[in-house]
C-alpha cells in the first residue's frame, strides 16, 4: 500500500518525454521501396513527419499501465456520481462485443444478418421497456439523443404547419444543462420553469408558460433531485391540451426501468443513455449510445435508416421520406448496442424490475445513513435511485469531495442540480453491497470529524493535490511542446 502510494505520487512524464529518436514499437508488415512523390504528388507530401512519440512496446505498456494506476473507475472503488448511474459493467459484455468487432457497415447486408437481427430485437426491447412504439438506435450519446428527439418533434410540428408558431421549449430549472443546450441547437428559445417547494415542477407555473407557442417540454423523471414527478399525468395533459410534445430525458431511467414506463406516463419521446441505465461502460467519458423511442405519431420522422424485418431476414430501411435525416454516420454505436442487448436479455423482465427496485433501496438506505452522519437532505422523502444532500452547516461541498478522495472514494456529483446550494448528488446504484454503502457513509462522517483545516488541504496522497483551475483557464496549456520551442 505504502509502496503504491509512493509510486503514484511520483512525477508522471509524458509519453513524449519518454521518446528517443529511432526507437520503435510495433512494426507493420514490410514496405517495398516506394516513390511517394510519383504516387501522391510532391506538392501534397508533408515536409516533416508528425512528432509522434518514439517508444518501444514495453515502454508503451508501462506508460499506459502507469497512467491507469493514476485513475479510478467503478472497478477500483465506489463511484456514486449522481445522474451518471455508475453501476457495475459486467465483463461478459466485453466478451460479447469482441464477437462483432470485424463487421463493416457497408458489407452486403445478407452477410451481417446477425448484427441486424440484434439491432432489430434491441429496438423492440427498448420500445417495450419505455412504452414507446418505435426506437432509433442511431444517436451516439444522451445529448445526441436529445437533439434527435427534439428535431423529431420539430419535424412533426412542421408537418402540421405549426413550426413557425411553436418556437419555445420549456425546461425545468432543475434540468441537466444538455437539455437547454439541445433546445438551442435545435433552433428553439428556451424558457425555464421554476421548481416548487417540494422540488417538483411547479404545475401552475408550467400551465402559465404553456400555450400554442410551445413545441415541447423536456422533463427528467425522476427529476435531478431524485424525486418522482407525481403530477406527471397532469403535466402531460396540460402539455397535450395545447399541442406541445412531452420529451423524456432518460438519464434517470434506472430508478424505474421496467417498473413504470415513460410512454404510459404520457411522454411522446424518450432518449435513453445506454451508458447509464444499460451499463455500457463510460470509458472515461464515452463512447455511449442514446437511442430515442417515440409514439406512433412521431415514427415517420425518426432518423434514417431503421432496421426492419424483410421476409426471412433483416434490412436497413432508407425509404423514410418524412425522416429528419441522419444524425450520425452508419447505424449508431453498435458496440454499445451489443452490450445493452446482452444486459437486457440476461436480466429479463424480473431482473430489470428488481435492479430498479434495488437501486431505489440502496439510495434510500444511504440517505438514512447520511442523515445519521449529520448531512442535510433538503427534500427528505422516499427518493428514487438518487438523492441530493448538503454537508453539515458550515462545510463546503468541494471540501467534502476532496476529503472523500483522500479516503479512497469517488465523490458524488457536486454543485448539481443548480437549485440546491452546496449540492451533493448521490447515486449508489443497485450493484453496491450494503457494506460499501455503510463504509461510504462512515467516510462522509469521518471527513467532517477531521475538521475544516484538514478538509481544506485535502486530498494529500492522491497522484496530485488540488489543482490550479484558474491558471488553466487564464493560460491554458493544451498540448506538449518539444523543449526549446
Amino acid at each position, binding site marked *: 500500500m505504502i509502496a503504491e502510494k509512493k509510486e503514484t505520487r511520483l512525477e508522471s512524464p509524458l509519453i513524449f518525454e519518454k521518446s528517443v529518436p529511432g526507437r520503435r514499437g510495433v512494426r*507493420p508488415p514490410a514496405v517495398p521501396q516506394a516513390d511517394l512523390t510519383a504516387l501522391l504528388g510532391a506538392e501534397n507530401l508533408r515536409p516533416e513527419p*508528425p512528432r509522434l512519440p518514439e517508444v518501444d512496446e514495453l515502454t508503451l505498456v508501462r506508460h499506459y499501465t502507469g497512467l491507469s494506476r493514476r485513475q479510478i473507475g467503478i472497478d477500483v472503488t465506489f463511484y456514486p456520481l449522481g445522474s451518471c448511474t455508475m453501476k457495475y459493467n459486467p465483463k461478459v459484455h466485453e466478451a460479447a462485443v469482441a464477437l462483432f468487432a470485424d463487421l463493416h457497415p457497408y458489407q452486403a447486408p445478407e452477410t451481417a444478418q446477425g448484427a441486424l437481427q440484434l439491432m432489430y430485437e434491441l429496438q423492440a426491447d427498448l420500445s417495450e421497456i419505455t412504452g414507446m412504439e418505435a426506437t432509433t438506435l442511431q444517436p451516439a450519446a444522451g445529448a445526441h439523443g436529445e437533439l434527435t428527439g427534439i428535431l423529431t418533434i420539430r419535424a412533426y410540428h412542421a408537418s402540421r404547419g405549426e413550426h413557425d408558431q411553436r418556437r419555445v421549449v420549456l425546461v425545468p430549472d432543475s434540468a441537466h444543462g444538455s437539455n437547454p443546450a439541445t433546445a438551442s441547437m435545435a433552433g428553439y428559445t428556451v424558457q425555464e420553469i421554476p421548481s416548487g417547494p417540494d422540488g417538483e415542477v411547479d404545475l401552475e407555473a408550467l400551465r402559465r408558460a404553456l400555450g400554442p407557442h410551445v413545441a415541447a417540454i423536456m422533463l427528467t423523471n425522476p427529476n435531478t433531485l431524485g424525486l418522482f414527478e407525481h403530477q406527471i399525468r397532469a403535466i402531460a395533459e396540460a402539455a397535450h391540451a395545447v399541442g406541445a410534445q412531452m420529451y423524456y430525458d432518460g438519464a434517470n431511467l434506472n430508478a424505474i426501468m421496467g417498473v413504470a414506463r415513460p410512454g404510459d406516463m404520457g411522454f411522446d419521446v424518450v432518449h435513453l443513455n445506454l451508458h447509464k441505465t444499460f451499463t455500457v461502460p463510460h470509458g472515461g467519458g464515452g463512447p455511449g449510445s442514446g437511442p430515442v423511442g417515440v409514439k406512433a405519431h412521431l415514427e415517420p420522422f425518426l432518423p434514417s435508416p431503421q432496421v426492419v424485418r424483410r421476409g426471412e431476414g433483416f434490412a436497413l430501411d432508407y425509404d423514410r421520406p418524412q425522416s429528419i435525416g441522419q444524425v450520425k454516420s452508419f447505424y449508431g454505436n453498435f458496440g454499445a448496442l451489443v452490450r445493452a442487448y446482452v444486459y437486457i436479455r440476461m436480466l429479463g423482465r424480473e431482473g430489470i424490475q428488481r435492479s430498479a427496485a434495488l437501486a431505489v433501496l440502496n439510495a434510500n438506505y444511504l440517505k438514512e445513513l447520511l442523515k445519521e452522519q449529520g448531512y442535510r437532505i433538503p427534500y427528505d422523502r422516499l427518493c428514487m435511485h438518487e438523492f441530493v444532500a448538503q454537508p453539515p452547516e458550515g462545510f463546503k461541498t468541494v471540501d467534502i469531495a476532496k476529503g472523500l478522495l483522500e479516503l479512497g472514494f469517488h465523490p458524488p456529483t457536486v454543485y448539481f442540480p443548480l437549485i440546491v446550494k452546496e449540492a451533493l448528488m448521490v447515486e449508489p446504484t443497485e450493484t453496491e453491497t450494503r457494506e460499501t454503502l455503510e463504509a461510504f457513509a462512515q467516510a462522509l462522517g469521518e471527513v467532517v470529524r477531521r475538521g475544516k483545516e484538514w478538509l481544506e488541504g485535502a486530498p494529500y496522497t492522491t497522484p496530485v493535490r488540488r489543482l490550479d483551475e484558474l491558471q488553466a483557464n487564464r493560460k491554458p496549456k493544451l498540448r506538449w511542446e518539444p523543449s526549446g520551442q
Partner: protein
Amino acid sequence: MDYTPHTPQDLEAMLAKVGAEDLPDLFRELPQDLLFPPLNLPAPLSEAEMMRKLHELAAKNHSAAGSFLGGGLRAHYIPAAVGPLATRAEFLSAYTPYQPEASQGLLQAIFEYQTMISELTGLPVSNASLYDGSTAVAEGVLLALRETGRSQVLISQGVHPEYRKVLKTYLDAIGAELETLPLQSGKTPPAMIGPEVGAVVGANPNFLGTVENLAPLAEAAHAAGALFVAVVDALSLALLKPPGSYGADIAVGEGQPLGNAMAFGGPQFGFMAVRENLVRQLPGRLVSETTDADGKRGYILTLQAREQYIRRGKAKSNITTNAQLTALMGAVYLGALGPQGFREVATRSVLNAHDLAQRLRAIPGVRQLTPEPYFCEFVLELPKPPVEVRSRLAERGLHAAVPVPEEYGQNLALFAATEVHTEEDLAALEAALREVLA
C-alpha cells in the same frame, strides 16, 4: 441473472431502515396504475446461455477483417497492445474526469492525445474528441458559423455523402443553408463564395479517394471572410500535408483508422483541431496542464464555460459524453507505431491501393473514376450493378465494392486497400471480380 448483491438478510434490514415493507412498497408514492407493466421480454439467460446465443448471432455475420471496403472505415490492423491498454479497467469504468485528483491517468492521456491530433493536423488546439467523423464535420461547421456570425455553408461534394447528410440535419435545425459544390472530374473546382457564407468545407482525400490541393479553396474562403473546414483522413496525415499548412482553420475527421475496430460502424471517434483564436468557440472537453497545491505538474478540464453544464442554453454545443475511450485507443495506437510505423502503415496502404486499382481497371468493362493522385481508396465504374457485385463477391468470401451514391454517377463502387493486404489478397480479389463481371 442480474448483478445485485443483496441477500435476504440485507433486504430485511435495509427495507426496515427505509420504512418499506417490500420492494414494490418503495414505489408507493407513484401513480399505482403505472406500476409493473407486463413487459414482453424473453426469459432471463445465464452467462453461458447468453454467450451461446451471441455465438449463434455472430455466426450469421461474415467477418470483414481482411476486406476491401472503405468509405469512412477500413480494415486496418490493430496492434495487440492497443485493446488491453486502452480498456484497462480503470479507464473503461471511469466517468468523465470531473475530479482531477482521481483522474490524472485519463487527463494526462487526453493531453497526450490532444498533442498527437495537433501534430497530425498542424493546428495548435485539439479537443478531447467528438462522437464520430460525421458529427465532427457538423460541429466544425457550427463553430465556423458562430465565429463568423453567418448562416450559409458551402461544401464540396468530395465530402463523404453521409457526413453531408448529417450536416444537413444539424443545419436545418438552425435554419442555416447548405450549398454543395459539385466535383468536376473528381476534384473540387474553384468556387465563388458569397458574403453570407461562414464555412467552406472540403475533404482530403475526397470521397472518391483523390488527394486534393485545397489551398485555393481555403484562400477563396478567407477572401470572402469565411472559415475553411478541412475533413481529413487520419491515416493520410502520416504522409500528406497537415491541413493547418494549407489554410484550414478547423480540421475534423474520423479516428477509426487509428486503432479502432470497424464494429459495424461504431463506436469510433471524431477529432477536431482548430487555430488558437478559435479555442473559446471549441465544442467539447479540453484538458490543460496546470500545477497542484504543491507546485507539481497535473492536468485538468479547462475553459469549461464553453460547455452545457455551465452555460446551458448558451453553450457552444450540447455535447456531454464524447468518445474518450475510443480516442484513447487512437492515442495508444499512435504511440505503439510511432512516426515510422505510422508512415509505413500509410505507405503500404497507398501502394496496395495503387496495385489493386491497376489490376481491377484492367478488367474489361471497368473504368477508374478517381483521378490521380489518390490515397488508399478509389472508385470504379463497373459494368454490373455494384449492389449485386458486392453480394457475388461476398459469396466468394471477399468483401469489396461499396455501392457509391448515384449523385456521383451510375454503377460506381468504392474499393480500399490497407496495410493488411498481401499480393495474394489483391490477386484473389482481381480473380473474383473477373469472374463476377464475366
